């Protein structure tokens, strides 16, 4: 089975709110605000693919990314944990893609790749947080999709997957080819590559395609857009926190319960 993992490079999601800014010109965080990293859910998706390879369910893992030239760092990272191949669909750094455009590029690339059986995407990219691309890719390929998966096993030709629904853990059997979106889980923390693997990864070739090479000319690419971005702003929070102090923990706990009762937020059973 050939698994393709959809990757994205995003701004470090741990940058604290106090430091976060948006450049009103570009409607994006200014360059250099924080490092750019492989998105957290993409890490989980990549790890799931590697685990499926470890147990023999997957023979080959390809990392696929649509992004500007600098984003290839995350493809190197995928090669360093032994993805077999890395494919880069290169766009201009100034292109702000909407989910439909991203899906158009990825679908065109997936059609160019050989016999793909499984596509793994993160549940959402931690920058624009749309959570759409995996599902759009599934629909455009006409493949089934299951979202928010955190465990997968190949049994009798079908992929068995587990995910957390609104109130229960759901276990599905999915016919291949299929698309999964992957969520975070303690079992899906991305492994580290060894120094040897890292060095080898830097020497590996990355396949690079332009949108035009994939049949998406400038006009087709522009026409694929379905969402226009209006304004982007950082909301201001006015702190109103009342700090509760006391002689010891018991005192603080009692005072907090008292304040909650006074504010009519919590009934005291006493």
């Amino acid at each position, binding site marked *: 089975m050939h698994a393709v993992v959809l990757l994205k490079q995003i701004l470090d999601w741990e940058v604290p709110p106090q430091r976060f800014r948006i450049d009103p010109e570009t409607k994006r965080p200014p360059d250099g605000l924080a490092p750019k990293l492989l998105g957290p859910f993409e890490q989980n998706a990549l790890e799931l693919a590697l685990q499926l390879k470890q147990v023999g369910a997957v023979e080959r893992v390809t990392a696929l990314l649509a992004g500007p030239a600098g984003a290839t760092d995350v493809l190197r990272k995928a090669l360093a944990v032994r993805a077999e191949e890395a494919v880069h669909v290169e766009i201009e750094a100034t292109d702000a893609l909407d989910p439909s455009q991203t899906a158009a590029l990825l679908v065109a690339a997936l059609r160019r790749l050989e016999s793909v059986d499984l596509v793994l995407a993160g549940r959402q990219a*931690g920058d624009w*947080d749309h959570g759409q691309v995996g599902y*759009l890719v599934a629909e455009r390929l006409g493949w089934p999709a299951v979202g928010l998966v955190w465990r997968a096993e190949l049994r009798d030709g079908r992929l068995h997957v587990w995910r957390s*629904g609104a109130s229960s853990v*759901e276990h*599905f059997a999915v016919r291949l080819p299929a698309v999964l979106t992957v969520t975070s*889980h303690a079992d899906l923390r991305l492994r580290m590559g060894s120094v040897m693997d890292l060095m080898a990864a830097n020497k590996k070739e990355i396949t690079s395609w332009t949108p035009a090479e994939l049949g998406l000319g400038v006009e087709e690419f522009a026409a694929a857009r379905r969402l226009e971005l209006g304004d982007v702003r950082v909301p201001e929070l006015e702190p109103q926190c009342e700090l509760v102090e006391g002689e010891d923990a*018991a005192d603080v706990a009692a005072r907090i*319960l008292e304040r909650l009762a006074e504010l009519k937020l919590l009934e005291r059973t006493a």
Partner: protein
Amino acid sequence: MIVAATWDVDDLGRAGCELVGAANRLGAALGAEVAFVSLAADGAGAAEAAGTHGAARAFVVLGDHAVSGSEGSVAALAELARELNARAVLLPADEQGGEVAPRLAERLAGTAVTHALAIEAADGRPVWTRPVFGGKALATVMATVEPVVATLRRGAFDPAEETGGSVSIEAREVPAGDGAVELLDSEAPAGGASLEDAAVIVSGGAGLGSAEAFSELEELARLLGGAVGASLAAVDAGWAPPERQVGLTGKAVSPDVYFALGISGASQHLAGIGSAKAVVAVNTDPDAPIFRTARLGAVMDCREFIGALVAELRRSAR
């Protein structure tokens, strides 16, 4: 038509009322009527309630929705949206809505807008506000195509008021699927009240330090008559199952009191608790962003606080 659809069982519930309320206001702004669709196995109660809250038409979709994952709901809504010439379809921003919205939008050659927090109509065109960068910023987006399939954050929209109207409920069936996705098992985790409906939530994060410390939240929740929540860090550490996660990538909750224990307050977490009436934050770091959102706070070790609070509640319960 503006279509609002939910998976609520029995009646409309708070989230369903919010959806219908948002649909009513969008419909009024665009000069369109509202249709409600229940995608629950037994949705007659919800459909009836939608009729008394402003919906002009109400549908139930009969059959097993769950067996095909989201496919049954996507196929049923696609048929109805075409039949009703829907300009917008509004869904809850929950696990199911997040999967249905993009797939449905694609099938209707429209576009999805996820996690909407507000809708305004400008020149007959809806403008949607949604959180981006893990809730650190808010963006407005407009669709260049119709229909828009949007998921709405719980707690962000005023619920519909009763209008006294009534509708006759129309029935449709879940279209037959191709069996590509088959639900084999659905296992509800043991114990734990629903996070969405809880009046009190005790939520733990990385500051708890261990699975053992996290497990003490169960007793605290029991004493407070509440539910246990978790931050992404606690879920990633394996201390809590994913369905307990609160935040942008988890659940949006609206309790009276939200205890954030050992949670620093990453934006993605804050995005899930904006509708809580009061946040009580306990953290060793006085500069933790959670204190900017909290109503009450204590700078101390949250494990000590939990122990003390449990003891205090036990003492007063006697």
